[in-house]
């Protein structure tokens, strides 16, 4: 099970990095989303992998650490998911506005190849 999860996290990270390095805003956003999935799985895995263990005290369970899983990584994952989700939404809005204003979805604004704004060269 561990090896499956490790491979899965690796594939997600690799795909995410590759997409993030592309020049289209949509690809970058997808890449960042995959990257955040990989990170979330990684955090969950850092609480170690168990099955059929309760994260909070349950009546009738033996009061032993062998019976319980670590609840903290689960709370961390939840926080990370919420934050990542909100940031992705914001990034989509920026990308859409950028497309509306410059007429292309290149990450630098405008179309691939030609710079959208001739003045941009001058901005440095």
């Amino acid at each position: 099970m561990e090896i499956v999860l490790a491979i899965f996290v690796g594939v997600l990270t690799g795909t995410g990095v590759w997409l993030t390095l592309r020049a289209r805003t949509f690809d970058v956003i997808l890449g960042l989303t995959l990257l955040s999935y990989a990170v979330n799985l990684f955090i969950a895995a850092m609480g170690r992998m168990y099955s059929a263990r309760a994260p909070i005290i349950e009546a009738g369970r033996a009061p032993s650490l062998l019976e319980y899983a670590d609840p903290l990584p689960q709370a961390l994952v939840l926080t990370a998911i919420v934050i990542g989700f909100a940031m992705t939404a914001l990034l989509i809005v920026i990308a859409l506005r950028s497309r509306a204003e410059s007429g292309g979805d290149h990450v630098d604004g405008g179309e691939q190849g030609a710079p959208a704004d001739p003045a941009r060269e001058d901005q440095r």
Partner: protein
Amino acid sequence: MNWPHWIILPVVLPLAAAALILLFGRAHLGLARLISLASTLALLGVALGLVGHAQGGAVEAYLVGNWRAPFGISLVLDRLSALMLLLTAAVGLVALVYSMDDDDRRGAYFHALFQLQLMGLNGAFLTGDLFNLFVFFEVLLSASYGLLLHGGGRARLAAAFHYVSFNLVGSALFLIAVAMLYGLTGTLNMADLAQRVAAAPAENAALIRAAALLLLVVFSVKAALLPLYFWLPDTYGAASAPVAALFAVMTKVGIYAIARVTTLIFGPEAGVAANVAAPWLAALALATLALGSLGALAARRLRVQVAYLVVASAGTLLVGLGLGTQAAVAASLFYLAPSTLVVAGLFLVVDRIAVARGEAADHLRLAPLGTGRAGLGAVFFVLALAAASLPPSANFMGKATLLQAALPSAHPALTWAVVLLAGLGLVVALARTGSLVFWKAPEALHRLSPQLLASGPQRAGIALALLAVLGLAIGAGPLAAYTQATSAQLFARQTYIDAVLGAQPAPPAWTPRVGMDKP
């Protein structure tokens, strides 16, 4: 402190102000300004009080929710966090006052976002928990995304897309590092982490060192360390002037986090991970400083030139942290406040210069000057002098003590050469700008009225920045004493650990009416 809740005020106050502004200030800009100004002034007062308290040398832990550390989240006030709080409030006030005539009109929610940004900054400086630090990073970043876009426009959108994506990747790396440390040590409380990393078995050494360096990468994204600073000139060059001024303190969050983590958790006593970041920091900081100086020389826009000053200042600060001795860290911390305030002031002045030059705006080419040759020129001269670390500014003192502290290091000649040559580069860059903009510029046909050049609040904001820079030059003695004590406190990490882990929950102030037990 007889009232323990002072420590959490720098987080709660701007949050409440932001909520009030969103509730009542949406239709009334005047009210929004009033609340924002009141909150920032109150923050300045609280920060002054906290600095006064921290000066005594006590490390104070505030248990949020009255849970004992390391199980609950704790806020920690020591000399370093108090200094950062004061710096944030001061820069915040300068930027806010400047914005209150024109800039805050250009889009909705400026003041609410501004307060949330202050909350995120203050929280990051106060928290004693690594995951909580991540959360406050996100709070300050999400507010900064909004502030960067404030005013709209194509250049800002393009810069914002890069900035947000870059920081999202940074956040992902931060989470990986945090998760690794938690998986290896089972704690996220920084004091507890310091103990457990020091006692970690050798078989975990490689993973802990990897996590430590990953944290360094994440903080370097914020602090603008080579090779992770390329986002900064574009972003700061695109932001509106008061926002860029406030962002000057944002890079210092990264510096703060590096200073905290490299002394507390991965310091000289950290066992398998002792001083893991130091060799990287020392070399990269010198390279950052050199490239910041070259960038300032090569910049074609005045605002981008100031942004490169931020990079150069970050490089200088990290040189001190990279040297890693108590004297060098003290010199760095001394340099921190004046360099931040000077850059914030310069962003504001440059905004006015761009108005005075009309069409040419802040592009570094010969162009007629509408007005303000004497006034703007004098202000620019004073701030540029300080930014280039020439005497009699406090920046000069900071750099001089840093060079002194570098003498016993491994490569003093290299450090001296880079710091001095980079300083020379900044002097040349700023002198060239000054002569191009003020001396060589012909008189414009249409003279700008003084009111159009800078309104009351804008003048007040710039005056406040000037006052702070001059005040730091005069008060350099007390500041030096304070930063030396701060550095000593950072290296006496056991005090910090004992204060946090030994903090006792207060007796409950009230008993809940509804019991938590199951019926």
